[in-house]
């Protein structure tokens, strides 16, 4: 038994079935279960995650994720880079929502230096943060379809995500890696006409959500594939350190945007934190779909009231951070992301611990995959939604 937490009936049944299958394989027939390597190169692992599963027929008896195939040594690398350089590196951790990776690090550095970015910069930061959330989650909404065998949704996702990326590019210069955040503010201000363009794109994003609702969420086949698959109860979710939509889909009402006092502009907006009581794969999809809509509405609210003013606080040209420690975390698209920065007064951090959401999110896999069928492994992997860079760092 891997956990003492109360499991749902479904999980218990699956666990018992898994144990029974284990016994049957090893005692009655005296054969070994077939062990199957899903990954490191497998379409369902979005990169190089390897999951070793032992199968009885198509039922998973035992599973374990093996990560680290894409370890790039970020925490060590950050120790030998200056603060502006770190900024360009960290947005490659979760490459689907790069800007959201920069923000917590920059906030930590600002906290150490005791500077606060001007109000205008905070609003624009929040807009881009939510845009990267849209860019990330729209891809999930389409990709989940592909993992379940529907080819079309992912093309719609790429089609409508493109407009969001274009917006990011026209303001920051980079589609994937904006490198737009600076200690004390932003790189440069928005170009003219950007706000109006952004409003049009948010309408498109909402249309995309409606389309996904018709194409996937309402589809009975999709529902039979996802409902009741990979149920995570709130207690289990908390004990494994899940965060983000995976946690909210288990019914835990937890969102750092609302719960944490952040200098970013979320406090000026009205938004709902969506939760779902079921905790299954369908709930995770549904919650993320609502979150994309909610992000679009946050952006719309912010666009109307961006305060005028400078975008950069007064910071020295060469950034030297005084000695100290800071922990800053935000609600990233994948879940809680935080940086624990220790500075000894140098040009770069002395030590930096990166807490990424996906690493904790996949730690639940051995518990979750026991007793399910091979196709459900794919459903669960897709619905947990991890980015490989976010796991391995």
């Amino acid at each position, binding site marked *: 038994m891997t956990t003492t937490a109360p499991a749902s009936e479904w999980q218990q049944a699956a666990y018992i079935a898994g144990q029974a299958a284990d016994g049957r394989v090893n005692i009655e027939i005296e054969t070994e279960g*077939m062990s*199957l390597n899903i990954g490191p190169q*497998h*379409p*369902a692992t979005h990169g190089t995650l390897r999951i070793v599963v032992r199968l009885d027929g*198509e039922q998973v008896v035992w599973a374990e994720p093996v990560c680290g195939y894409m370890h790039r040594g970020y925490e060590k690398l950050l120790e030998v880079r200056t603060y502006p350089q770190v900024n360009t590196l960290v947005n490659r951790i979760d490459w689907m929502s790069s800007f959201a990776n920069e923000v917590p690090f920059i906030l930590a550095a600002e906290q150490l230096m005791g500077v606060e970015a001007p109000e205008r910069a905070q609003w624009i930061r929040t807009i881009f943060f939510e845009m990267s959330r849209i860019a990330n989650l729209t891809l999930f909404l389409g990709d989940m*379809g*592909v*993992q*379940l*065998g*529907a*080819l*079309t949704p992912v*093309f*719609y996702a790429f*089609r409508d995500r493109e407009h969001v990326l274009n917006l990011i590019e026209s303001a920051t210069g980079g589609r994937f890696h904006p490198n737009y955040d600076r200690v004390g503010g932003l790189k440069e201000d928005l170009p003219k006409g950007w706000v109006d363009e952004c409003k049009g794109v948010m309408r498109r994003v909402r249309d995309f959500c409606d389309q996904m609702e018709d*194409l*996937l969420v309402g*589809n009975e*086949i*999709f529902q*039979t*594939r996802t409902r009741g698959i990979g149920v995570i109860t709130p207690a289990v979710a908390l004990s494994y350190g899940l965060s983000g939509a995976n946690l909210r889909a288990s019914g835990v009402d937890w969102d750092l945007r609302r719960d944490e006092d952040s200098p970013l502009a979320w406090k000026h907006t009205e938004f709902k934190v969506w939760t779902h009581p079921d905790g299954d794969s369908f709930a995770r999809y549904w919650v993320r779909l609502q979150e994309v809509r909610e992000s679009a509405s946050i952006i719309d609210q912010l666009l109307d009231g961006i305060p005028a003013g400078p975008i950069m606080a007064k910071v020295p040209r060469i950034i030297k951070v005084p000695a100290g420690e800071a922990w800053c975390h935000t609600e990233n698209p994948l879940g809680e992301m935080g940086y624990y920065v220790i500075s000894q007064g140098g040009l770069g951090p002395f030590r930096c611990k990166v807490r990424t959401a996906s690493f904790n999110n996949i730690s639940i896999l051995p518990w979750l995959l026991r007793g399910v*069928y*091979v*196709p*459900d*492994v*794919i459903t669960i992997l897709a619905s947990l939604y991890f980015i490989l860079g976010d796991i391995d760092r």
Partner: protein
Amino acid sequence: MLGLELAYWQQALIKVGAVMTVIPLGALILGYVFLLKMMSHMQSRLGPMEAGPHGTLQLLADAGKFLQKEDIFPARSDRTVFALAPVVVMVSTFLLYLVIPAGPRLIVEDLDTGVFFALAVGSLSVIGVLMAGWASASKYSLLGALRAAGQLIAYELPLVLAVVGVVVQAGTLSLQGIVHAQADGEMFGFGGIGNPYVITQFVGFLLFMVASQAELTQTPFDMPVAESELVAGYMTEYTGFRFLFFFMAEFGSAFALSAIAATLFLGGWYLPGVNGDLADYLGPLVLGGKIMFVAFLIFWFRFTYPRFREDQLQTFAWKYLIPLSLMNIVATGILKVVF
């Protein structure tokens, strides 16, 4: 048909030639129109545009590419079986074409038990699939092949049972006879458009479409190939022209099953008001049009839906489709006696 009397061997040669051209041609047309173009447009894109006008020659270019590839055998594969498997799948597809009538006299072999023959050879392909999966010495292939076997057995039944309704109504097992029965029949005393069984056997048509979707391993039921799970299943280890065989067999059998569906339910080559010699010339075109319609449905479902899970598919087949098709047969039988 042209007033020529040919020797048996000459006829046989012509027939073999016809079948050999129709299958690749059908596969190419379906592949181009639906896989490349319809899917692309459904996904807001254009698809291949460079090879030939509007990308028409893309599949030929692909075939050329496949032929150049190295013919790889996995180290621990059973070489003979591995090499034979695509051929078996291909042959079963070829045999399907023998009994489909394209005109009053345009048919390769007008067997008295045409439907029976078509369904029987159609399920031969599963042997090839099993051979491929087993001989590949790959776990993914094995899983895919076993899934395919389970699925094809489960779906052969509703497919056959759906056809039984048509056979009962037409009173013949010959495909040519079924077309004539639809052409000469009348619906509730109205004979203007004959009696296409898609209307009177609507439940049977739906069952047939669902079952043939599974038979062809198209998307709501494509677990044997399931790209995101089994990485193309039993085809995982195949390269080059052997893969091309599977690919052609997939589209060739899609073409053949569409043709059978068109024949059984849409009246085959029959177009209201076209009789005699004209039907012989127009027949292939009419049949082609109807095939395209059925294939459009098949591929439309394929590109829209996610796939079932293997056990859900079995549940669906045994708990819903088979009882429904049995009821359809009973209802058809009762109605046949009453009217």
